């Protein structure tokens, strides 16, 4: 190895490790700021109480946990079938030229800032729901629709890759025994791409859990456990972003503790997604 190569290698190693170091610092910082809170308030009162009233010393985030859960579930109900259908069409049915145009278009969706999605939700979806379905409009439904569209690029591109990774020979074999296109897709291609599709769903879920700006704008941010699709709702990420600006003392720690909960949830989702991808490789 020449000297120049060694220098280049050293630089790349430092740069590569620095992103890992940033992750380590973030973890350290969130836990350092959040940990004292668990000692002071206790895990049961934090995770199990429904009363969030920081000014009076009540820090129950159960409504936010439920909020994140319902909004994410709603987003998946909207986004997964749409994304799966879109990926299937692009990979199996669309003429090559059409796919070459459509795929980049779907990916552009990922580049639209979330505040734009939120704004469209706020000015179009929220009034529509308010006027036609009742309630204040800011709701689980509005957030699910907006998030459902926002997770499409993730869902489509990962599912598409998984479908493309199915060997062409499988399809040819099916056609050779007289199966039609639809039978080929449902009985061979989809099962073969199963783990990749699951991974796509889980990564989309991670995106939905983590999205903040758009959700703040359309969810209504009420600290209740929603009992209807039309109820307003607050997610874990919204809780942090909404109140970070002014929080001090125990309130601030409670927001970091919310971050710890979020971190654990997203970490678990990523590990889950990775394990599916690894299974596919085997």
């Amino acid at each position, binding site marked *: 190895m020449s000297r*120049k190569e060694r220098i280049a290698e050293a630089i790349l190693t430092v740069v590569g490790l620095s992103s890992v170091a940033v992750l380590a610092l973030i973890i350290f910082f969130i836990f350092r700021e959040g940990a004292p809170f668990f000692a002071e308030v206790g895990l049961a009162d934090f995770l199990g109480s*429904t*009363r*969030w*009233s*920081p*000014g*009076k010393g009540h820090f129950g985030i159960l*409504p936010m946990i439920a909020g994140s859960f319902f909004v994410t579930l709603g987003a998946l109900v909207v986004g997964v079938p749409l994304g799966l259908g879109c990926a299937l069409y692009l990979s199996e049915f669309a003429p090559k030229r059409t796919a070459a145009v459509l795929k980049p278009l779907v990916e552009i969706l990922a580049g639209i800032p979330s505040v734009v999605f939120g704004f469209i939700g*706020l000015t179009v979806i*929220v*009034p529509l729901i*308010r006027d036609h379905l009742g309630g*204040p*409009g*800011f709701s689980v439904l509005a957030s699910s629709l907006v998030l459902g569209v926002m997770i499409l690029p993730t869902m489509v591109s990962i599912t598409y890759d998984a479908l493309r990774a199915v060997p062409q020979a499988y399809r040819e074999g099916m056609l050779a025994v007289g199966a039609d296109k639809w039978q080929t897709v449902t009985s061979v291609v989809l099962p073969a791409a199963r783990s990749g599709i699951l991974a796509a769903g889980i990564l989309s879920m991670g995106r939905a859990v983590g999205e903040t700006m758009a959700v*703040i*704008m359309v969810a*209504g*941010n*009420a*600290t*209740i456990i929603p009992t209807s699709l039309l*109820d*307003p709702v*607050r997610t874990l990420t919204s809780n942090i972003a*909404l*109140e970070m*600006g*002014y*929080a*001090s003392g125990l*309130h601030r720690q409670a927001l970091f503790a919310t971050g710890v909960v979020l971190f654990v949830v997203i970490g678990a989702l990523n590990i889950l997604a990775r394990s599916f991808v690894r299974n596919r490789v085997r």
Partner: protein
Amino acid sequence: MLRRKEILRLPQAWLLLCLLAMALLSGCAREGRAGSITLAGSTSVQPFAEILAEEYARRYPERPSVNVQGGGSSAGARAAMSGTAHIGMLSRELAGSERELTPTVIAVDALALIVHRDNAVTELTKEQIKGIFSGRITDWSELGGAPGPIHVISREAGSGTRDAFDGLVMEGEDVLPRAIVQDSNGAVRETVAGDPRAIGYVSLGLVDDRVKAVKVDGVEASVETVRAGEYILVRPFLFVTKGEVPTGVKEFMEFVMGEEGQSILAGEGLVRAK
């Protein structure tokens, strides 16, 4: 492999150099100023003080910079008494031993209760407002309006406007958890403007003709009634100092109380002190 000459021809390399140079130069510009003025106290006053400080630095780059910290009204008074801060910021009147400090009312914060323009309700008592926001009154028909559920719009915990509302109206009661929470005066106003069943509260200066401010206890919400002391949902924003202050601090106070500072504060939705 690129040789050094070739690297210098790359546009990216030049861009990077320019950015570096700019970063260095802006760093130098900041260091030119001597000393600084420290403000500490109410988190309600803090955002306004930060805007004042920014403008002050922009218009008078040669004067000492102004450094704004939070901590709360009581902490602000303590900091001014102990000398930790040059100016304490309070969003309430001075109390007890704090009275030895010299207060200056820099502006008055007034809250307006706003409803949709088509709402038939034009007047509410403070008790009714408290009832609505605590969840005891849930339908507009109870207030003389068209029947329909009341959509309560509130602000996030910790915001200055929410603090003012909690202190002036709720008096220790919780705002109902079902209330929609928006994260700015503007977002509350937009929501109320679009929803015929909504009620919310914003700083008086941010009421416009897309929404309707209701009378509170029979008094219209306006700069005149606030000045006359008739409108009840108000609180003063104070800058407090201790004894004789250094010239730099005096200059900053003159800026805040002068036309420049006062119009900045009015532009942010507060009622001028004079």
